[in-house]
C-alpha cells in the first residue's frame, strides 16, 4: 500500500497535506482500494464549516456508499470540481488529482497519525 511519508492521516482513512494555512484533504490509497471503483463523489459546499473527525462528504462505489470525514477544523475554500465528471481520479491518483477539498485551517490539535502509525493501523486492519 502506498502511504506517502509527508502526509498526516485520519483514523477513517483520510489524508491531510499542509500548504501554508490551507490543508488539502483526500482519501488514502488503502481507502480507495477497499471501496473499489468510485462512481460518484459528493463534495462539501465551499464555505462549509468542517469539523475534525466529522462527515465532510460521501463517496460511492458501484457496491456501496461511504462517508469521509474532515481531518481538521476549518472552512472549506475549494473543492475538486473535476470529480463530478471524473470520479475515478480518486482511484487513479488518490494523493494527487483525486484530492477532495481544501480547508482553511491547521492540523494543530487534530488527532492525526504519522505515515508509519497509519501503515501499522491498516496492516492490522487487513491482517
Amino acid at each position: 500500500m502506498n502511504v506517502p511519508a509527508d502526509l498526516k492521516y485520519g483514523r477513517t482513512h483520510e489524508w491531510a497535506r499542509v500548504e501554508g494555512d490551507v490543508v488539502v484533504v483526500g482519501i488514502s490509497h488503502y481507502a480507495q482500494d477497499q471501496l473499489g471503483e468510485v462512481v460518484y463523489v459528493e463534495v462539501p459546499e465551499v464555505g462549509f464549516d468542517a469539523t475534525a473527525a466529522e462527515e465532510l462528504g460521501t463517496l460511492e462505489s458501484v457496491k456501496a456508499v461511504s462517508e469521509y470525514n474532515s481531518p481538521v477544523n476549518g472552512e472549506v475554500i475549494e473543492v475538486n470540481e473535476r470529480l463530478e465528471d471524473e470520479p475515478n481520479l480518486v482511484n487513479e491518483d488518490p494523493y494527487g488529482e483525486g484530492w477532495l477539498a481544501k480547508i482553511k485551517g491547521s492540523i494543530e490539535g487534530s488527532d492525526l497519525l504519522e505515515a508509519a502509525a497509519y501503515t501499522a493501523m491498516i496492516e492490522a486492519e487487513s491482517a
Partner: protein
Amino acid sequence: MAMPKHTALYDEHVADGGRMVEFAGYELPVQYTSLVDEHTAVRTRAGLFDVSHMGEIFISGPGAFDFVQLVSCNDHSKMTIGRAQYTGLMYPQGTFVDDMLVHKLADDEYLLVVNAANRAKDAAYLMGLAADRDGVEVRDESDSWAQLAIQGPLGAEILQPLTSTDLSELKYYTFVFGEVCGHRAMVARTGYTGEDGFEVYTANENAPEIWRAILAEGRPKGLLPAGLGARDTLRFEAGMSLYGNDIDDTTTPLEAGLGWIVKFKKCDYIGRDILEGQKESGLDRKLVGFEMIDRGIARHGYPVYLAESDDDPVGQVTSGTQSPTLGKALGLAYLPIDATEEGTEFIVEIRNRRVAARVVKTPFYKREKK
C-alpha cells in the same frame, strides 16, 4: 452468532486474491480485483462464480409432482425431464417464501434451487407441508453440493473441452447429468446474469479441481473469477429479482412484475385465491425500474415520494446502483399503480437530499440473442 461457513472453494478464493465477506452465513468473495472488470468480463467474455451457498432441496416420491404444484405459483405440468423453470415458493397470502428454480430430475423427483439466506426457512416450510401428505419426501442436501456458475458469451467455448456433454445441444433452461473433469456433475444452461452460461452442480470434493480447470481454460480467453458484487450488478441490469430486496414475504409475484410465473390454468395451490383476487381487482402498487434525472445513486431502502413537497413516502427503493454496462444510476422501487407508467417522474430521498427520478422500462439490459 454462528461462525460463517466456508464453501468447498474457500481456499481457491483466498489463493485467487478474493476479498472475503460474510453473505448468508458463508464467507464468499465480494470481488477479486475489480467489480467493474469482473462485471464487464461476464458481459463481453466470461466470468466464473462460486455459488455453492445456494440451497439444493430435493422433492421425491409418487406425490412429488402434486407437491411441487401445490407450493409453486408456476405450472410445472408441461415440464419434461431435464427442464428447469423459474417460480415462486408461495405463502397462503400470495407472497414469496422464496424464489427458486425447479428442475425436473424424474417423474417422481424434483430439485429446487433456493436462496442461501432462505434455505433453512424453505426446508422447514416444505417439510412441514410434506408431513401432512403421503408419498412426498423433502431432503435438504445443500451442504453436500457445490455449484459453479460460468457465465458469459464465451462460457460454452470454455466449458466444452472439460465435459463430455455436447453443450451446443443443451438449450436454455435445460440440464443434463454428465461429467466435468471426469467427475459426475449436473450441467444446466441457467444463470443469474442475463448472459448465456452454465451452472455446474457437483459433490463438494470435486469442486476445487473443476474451478481450477475452468480458470486455466478460460483465463487465456479473458475469463475472470467474479464475486458477489458483480453477481449483484449483473442480475440487477438484467432485471432479475433479489429476494430480500425486490421481493420478500410482503410482496406478491404480480406486484413484482413477475406475472409470467403466475399461472391460473393449473390445480389449486397455496396463495392462488389471493393472486387471482389481485389479478381481478388490479394492483395497488408495482415494482418499476427508474433512472436518476438528478445526480445521485439511489440505494436499497431509500424512501420515494410522488412530489418534492410530500411529507409521506409512498414506497422505497428496493435495489439501486450505478450500472456498469449502461453507465447510469438506475434503480427499482415499488410505486403506487398510478405512478408506474414509463416516463413518470418522482422523487428519491438520498441522505436527506431530494432528487428526481424517472420510470423506465425493465430489464435495463438485454443481451442480443444470436
